[in-house]
């Protein structure tokens, strides 16, 4: 198969339409996924959420138990219809977590491997490999073996190798996880550029929210084998629907019963900036939580007594974990910690401004 770009499709029709149902040693995956041409979707979730199983199912490395996988109008896996296309015949390119560059081949031959298998002759495959290495900025490294490449270079060779087959669907499994922090910043920016140029669909698996936010147009949050939330970065970060997502985006999240601006959470009633009726989430950032040694005067409405459970460094401030009627995290300055003489077990008062407290419906 000569992998051509995706066919022109009616606007709005997804290029990838999948309902992935798979089992893996007691673990059950059930994830629906639709990705348009040119769109980058991040599957984001904690370890063991089923992200990698989903990616393997898309690549054809793990068969579906039920559901379907349709790419560019063609069924690749549909257990009902007894359709299964093996990985080598799928128009799919994969960047693996630790790249899996063939150690016995040069960078050029690694990239040329795909085109060669898909029918190009040796010269054409090498020419295409050289062109791709040039595009990822590694023109001078064609003859290097994988072990002679740095982590960032190996990542780029892996990307070139996956893109050289001009896949309709590009899959990336934790593409930046193996890199050190510094290389990661540069590589992330560059990867963003290449993903933007890829005309097909892209699915990115990651547990790093920053990678997901920078690289993806849309986030699909997976927990326990199911989609718990999806939407663009702004929607997800503003309105997390699970503790995992809240922690990812750094928000305190609680579920309660709302009636207008008032939301009852346990024994407390919080006042939010939004108007909701019924089941609702309340979210506010740790930095919006202020700590006081005694009940504050002129009292802001959202105050409650709390007990310090722990204090740890978090960037250039300190994060205080609080027990009490509403377990939350609070970000305070070192000066404040010193002034309050905060230590575990101490009783304090917590306060959050209503203007920084968001509420949104929990149903549906």
């Amino acid at each position, binding site marked *: 198969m000569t992998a051509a770009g995706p066919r022109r499709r009616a606007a709005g029709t997804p290029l990838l339409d999948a309902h992935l149902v798979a089992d893996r040693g007691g673990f059950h995956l059930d994830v629906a996924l639709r990705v348009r041409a040119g769109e980058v979707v991040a599957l984001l979730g904690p370890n063991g959420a089923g992200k990698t199983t989903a990616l393997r199912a898309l690549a054809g490395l793990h068969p579906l138990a039920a559901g379907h996988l349709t790419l560019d109008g063609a069924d690749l896996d549909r257990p009902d219809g007894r359709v299964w296309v093996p990985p*080598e015949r799928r128009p799919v390119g994969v960047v693996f977590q630790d790249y899996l560059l063939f150690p016995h081949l040069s960078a050029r031959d690694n990239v040329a*491997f795909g085109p060669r298998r898909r029918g190009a002759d040796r010269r054409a495959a090498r020419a295409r490999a050289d062109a791709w290495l040039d595009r990822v900025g590694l023109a001078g490294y064609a003859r290097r073996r994988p072990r002679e490449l740095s982590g960032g270079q190996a990542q780029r060779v892996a990307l070139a190798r996956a893109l050289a087959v001009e896949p309709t669907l590009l899959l990336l499994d934790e593409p930046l996880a193996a890199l050190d922090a510094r290389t990661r910043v540069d590589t992330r920016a560059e990867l963003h550029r290449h993903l933007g140029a890829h005309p097909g669909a892209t699915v990115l698996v990651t547990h790093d929210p920053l990678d997901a936010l920078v690289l993806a147009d849309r986030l699909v949050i997976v927990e326990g084998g199911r989609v718990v939330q999806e939407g663009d970065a702004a929607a997800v970060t503003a309105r997390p629907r699970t503790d995992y997502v809240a922690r990812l985006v750094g928000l305190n999240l609680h579920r309660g019963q709302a009636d207008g601006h008032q939301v009852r959470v346990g024994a407390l009633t919080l006042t939010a900036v939004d108007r909701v009726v019924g089941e609702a989430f309340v979210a506010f950032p740790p930095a919006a939580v202020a700590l006081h040694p005694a009940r504050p005067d002129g009292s802001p409405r959202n105050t409650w007594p709390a007990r310090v459970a722990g204090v740890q460094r978090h960037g250039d401030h300190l994060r205080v974990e609080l027990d009490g009627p509403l377990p939350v995290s609070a970000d305070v300055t070192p000066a404040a910690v010193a002034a309050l003489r905060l230590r575990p077990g101490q009783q304090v008062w917590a306060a959050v401004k209503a203007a920084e407290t968001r509420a949104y419906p929990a149903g549906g």
Partner: protein
Amino acid sequence: MPVALFVPAGLGLAFLVLPLTGLLARAPWATLPQRLAAPGVLTALRLSLLTATGATLLCLALGVPLAWVLARVRFPGRRLVRALVTVPLVLPPVVGGVALLLVFGRRGLLGGWLDATFGVTLPFTTAGVVLAEAFVAMPFLVIAVEGALRAADSRYEEAAATLGAGRWTTFTHVTLPLVAPGVAAGAVLCWARALGEFGATITFAGNFPGRTQTMPLAVYLALETDLEAAIVLSLVLLTVSVAILAGLRDRWVTGP
């Protein structure tokens, strides 16, 4: 210094090397040139190298795919098959030779059919020597290659599949290069075992100078009449094989 390791290591080395010293001490150095020039020596040496190499190639052709199946394919009875592969290791070689006769001999299970259909008879032929050596040497190759395959990261094969490589191409272009050191090590063991093969060879292929009399057979017969001649033959076999193995090893270790 971990003396606890060095002392037994030294004893182990001495245990392996001392018998060689014994051979060197008793070697008839004065008459060595004449003995080496004796007509049978070169013939037997050439036959040994030829048949050991042939047996190694046969083991590679059959043993590498067998190792792949054992390492990569799940099937009922795999443990039993793996145990069967090691049978030639525990079987006394002479019994192995008899077993080969019972299969490939004139009255053997396949021998009669081979003769009638293709006119092929294996006992008492050079091909029979190759067969006998391959029989006893094959487990060394299969075990080494299977171990290498199990240790190799099978995700490389998955990566190859996503790039469009079918199973066969993946095997030849990815799997084999990845386990090349294991295959090489197995082939060396296999060759060395084939070179020293005696029992199965003399039982299955007999002993006839130039056709089936390899060095170990020549050594054994020389031992009947002339200890010194046997020592000379042994030293020739040792020197040649050690030289070849050392040469190959250097190449592999420094190679890619």
